[in-house]
């Protein structure tokens, strides 16, 4: 092997190493998966306070044990013909919180004008999917809501 050929091979190997290192760097920068968040039921409200007909926004706090922080969340509790449903306020478009417009009987997202009906279905705007339903659990006259934390 002459010098020219040696240098050529050396440069190719070094380049290959650099590309391999890029993969390692990407893997380093990708955040470590924290354990799957478990669903837990937290106290939401008294059963007597559930809306028979209509929409009520309820706030509740969740304690995330892993990160040891309290977060305050909100949920829309909707009473209708099919009983009680709890909707996540997170718009399925890009994640803003929707508001309930009582006059128009519509959930409206302030960010890009997504509209959802009282049953969570998309009735206008860009959202690709209906509002997410959250599980409710009633025990001893108290209502609990299932959230991931």
């Amino acid at each position, binding site marked *: 092997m002459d010098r020219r050929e040696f240098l050529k091979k050396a440069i190719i190997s070094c380049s290959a190493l650099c590309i391999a290192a890029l993969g390692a760097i990407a893997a380093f920068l*990708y*955040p470590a998966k924290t354990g799957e*968040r478990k669903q837990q039921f937290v106290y939401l409200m008294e059963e007597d306070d559930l809306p028979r007909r209509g929409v009520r926004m309820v706030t509740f706090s969740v304690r995330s044990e892993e990160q040891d922080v309290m977060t305050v969340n909100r949920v829309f509790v909707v009473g209708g013909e099919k009983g009680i449903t709890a909707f996540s306020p997170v718009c399925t*478009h*890009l*994640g803003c919180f929707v508001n309930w417009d009582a006059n128009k009987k519509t959930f409206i997202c302030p*960010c890009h004008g997504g509209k959802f009906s009282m049953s969570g279905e998309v009735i206008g705007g860009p959202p690709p999917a209906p509002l997410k339903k959250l599980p409710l659990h009633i025990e001893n006259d108290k209502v609990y809501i299932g959230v991931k934390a």
Partner: protein
Amino acid sequence: MGKLFDWFDARFHVKRPHKRFLQRRIPEGLNYTYCFGGLALTFFIVLAVTGLMLSVYYIPSEKEAYRSILMINDEVFLGWLVRSLHKWAASFFIVTIILHTIRVFVTRSYRPPRELNWIVGCCTFLVAMASAFTGYLLTWDQRAYWATEVGTAMIQTIPFIGDHLMYAVRGSAEISGATLIRFYSIHVLFLPLCMGLLMWMHFHMVKRQGIARRL
């Protein structure tokens, strides 16, 4: 002043190797629209200097970030001014880059042999936009939070890799302290480094190729 500079230059030798850059011929008929690129550079320098100053007081943590911004505004001497300069220079930086791009487009200065410089310029613009986006979160208030929520949620709509990409950008499933420190690092280290490299390429090519003749 001239004597002082000559004394300095007799030892540092900055004039001669840059003579071609400092004393070059420029085509006839140039006008002030040819200044937008230089203006953008000026705003970048303002951003770099004020950014360095802000980084001394800013604390990129979930609990301290917003408070440290209040402190910069209210307690640090001229802190409000430095922060305002950084904010306004950022806006004008983007605006002057766009104006510069329009000028290059209108005068068709992107044509051979300057295609690569157009591409490098576009990369500079993308890095500037990324800097603006990551810098926006650092104030850590409601507006910053929701802007980043929406901006990063858009990444999720990319087919196949969207979920992973959003997770990588946020550093966690939701926007959290991990996102803040990630954005801070990108904003003050990664992107300025890219920007420095791209700007060096841009100016190197301007120097070598000269300014395009006016149409």
